[in-house]
């Protein structure tokens, strides 16, 4: 993307950058690596990934279906960690809601007249929250999702270079 995006204080890039840096510093300030198990390592890595996803979703707020779905997933996961019971409850509720919405939409299995059912299903699995979208919205969300992912990657590249 062009640099002007960085100059724009409200662009997706700048929003994501600030949030992600904040999350990273928070993680860094967490307990140092004293654990010795590989699981701890990956847990930490996962935490970072979650932070990245969360900061991305938060910078998009709820303007998009996929960001809402992602935020929901993150929240339910954190609730589940805090309180297993509530997590179960919320999980069930969520599943019920998702199923209900998908039944209402009845779009997941519909031919849609365009004949791209298999690809559409695969795309639905990729894009968060895609199960409840018909093909039209799915393509829309995919476009925005791709845009956000590319932003993320671009912002991550300095990390890779040290």
């Amino acid at each position, binding site marked *: 993307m062009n640099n002007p995006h960085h100059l724009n204080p409200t662009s997706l890039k700048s929003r994501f950058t600030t949030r992600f840096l904040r999350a990273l510093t928070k993680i860094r300030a967490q307990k140092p*690596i*004293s654990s*010795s198990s*590989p699981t701890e390592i990956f847990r930490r890595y996962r935490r970072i990934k979650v932070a990245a996803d969360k900061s991305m979703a938060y910078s998009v707020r709820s303007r998009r279906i996929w960001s809402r779905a992602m935020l929901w997933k993150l929240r339910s996961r954190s609730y589940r960690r805090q309180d297993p019971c509530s997590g179960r409850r919320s999980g069930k509720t969520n599943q019920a809601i998702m199923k209900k919405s998908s039944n209402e939409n009845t779009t997941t299995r519909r031919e849609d007249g365009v004949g791209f059912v298999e690809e559409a299903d695969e*795309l639905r699995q990729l894009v968060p929250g895609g199960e409840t979208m018909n093909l*039209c919205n799915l393509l829309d969300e995919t*476009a925005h999702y*791709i845009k956000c992912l590319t932003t993320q*990657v671009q912002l991550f590249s300095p990390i890779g270079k040290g």
Partner: protein
Amino acid sequence: MQPCSREMQAMNSLLSPTQQIPLQDLQPNGNSGTHQAQIHNPQFDPTSSHDDFLDQMLSTLPSCPWSDLKSPWDPPKSDETPPSNHDNNVGFHYDEILASKLRQHQINGGGGGTTAAMKMMMQQQMMLPGRLIAAAGGGGLTMPLHNDIVDGSSFKSPNQQGGEGSVQALYNGFGAGSLHGTNNQSPNQPQHFHHPQGGNMQTQSFGATAGTVMNQSQASGSTTGGAPAQLKQRVRARRGQATDPHSIAERLRRERIAERMKALQELVPNANKTDKASMLDEIIDYVKFLQLQVLSMSRLGGAAAVAPLVADMPSEGGDCVQTTAGGGGSLQRNSNGNQPSANNDSLTVTEHQVAKLMEEDMGSAMQYLQGKGLCLMPISLATAISTATCHSRNPMINKGSSSNHPLLQSNGDGPSSPSMSVLTVQSATMGNGGLDGSAKDAASVSKP
């Protein structure tokens, strides 16, 4: 007039550039001055805003040969205060049936279209003006009007955005309009109907659509008795221009999907595929690739976040664990996005495998490692190298162990990896005694 201007703007924005021209003529300022007299009909008061819009539209239409027509429907009455009376005035008895349909499309008191009217229009080949006029004749068509107009104009090229099912309603009004048009001089007529000069471009499309509409209205409104059966021909709908609400909605959906596919095509690289299915596959692969890229980079970010702590590790007496991920290298190597995840898993598997082997026989463990292109090295050296090579562009493969802590380092792709790929994990299954001997192993670092 604000609603009118909005509608006009919406109309213009919806229309293609080529087709905007004739409609731009309909701008209030574009009044050709041919008709002013009967434009403003007090009977349109209930829907005055829309009527004004329509009137403005129609006012710009040049005179049409419809004046030559003799309308079989002479406006019976002159009182038309409620818009619904328009139908009665023209003697349209389709009204009940069609009006209900029109109202479904938010058209107030839509002028009943009659198949006869349609046919007449067809015969006269006055599609465009009739269409617009019919819209006006519908008496207060609301916003869907411009959709209808847009749809009508877009019929020429089916790929354009079309209006929705209200098209039929529009054509119903169309018929009414055409009938009205034959009596320009009648003061009761809500509008003048004149052929726009620029409307010829849409004649064919309108002819087709009118035909299709007529077709459908015949099927649907054939029971109305009041409509004269003077037009007997039945025009088959042109392919791709059916006005059945379902097919219209279907077409609209298809157009929207095509639009979005085009937008996606710009985002996704390597989008030279013309086939929609392959384009979708490309999109799917690209999304997978991006997700994995973010994953690996976050792993890398994890390493970067961990790096400040590396210095503490040796002081912890070998209990420390260092983890860095080789995101960049693996990423580059696996542009398809398949391997990075496999990389992660394979490392875990490798660790456990090596741990198991080390418990049995050091030699086999070493052979296993060498088979994978890995080696053992002391952690202190590994950490030193890792910090040193943080900025290097050469990934290093080194594997070492010191006091029970094997260091597994996987190779990131050589040429393109900007970052080091080091994964140091202490295998949980590693016994304390099993690695004592390995502590003496010389560190061998192999570069790819």
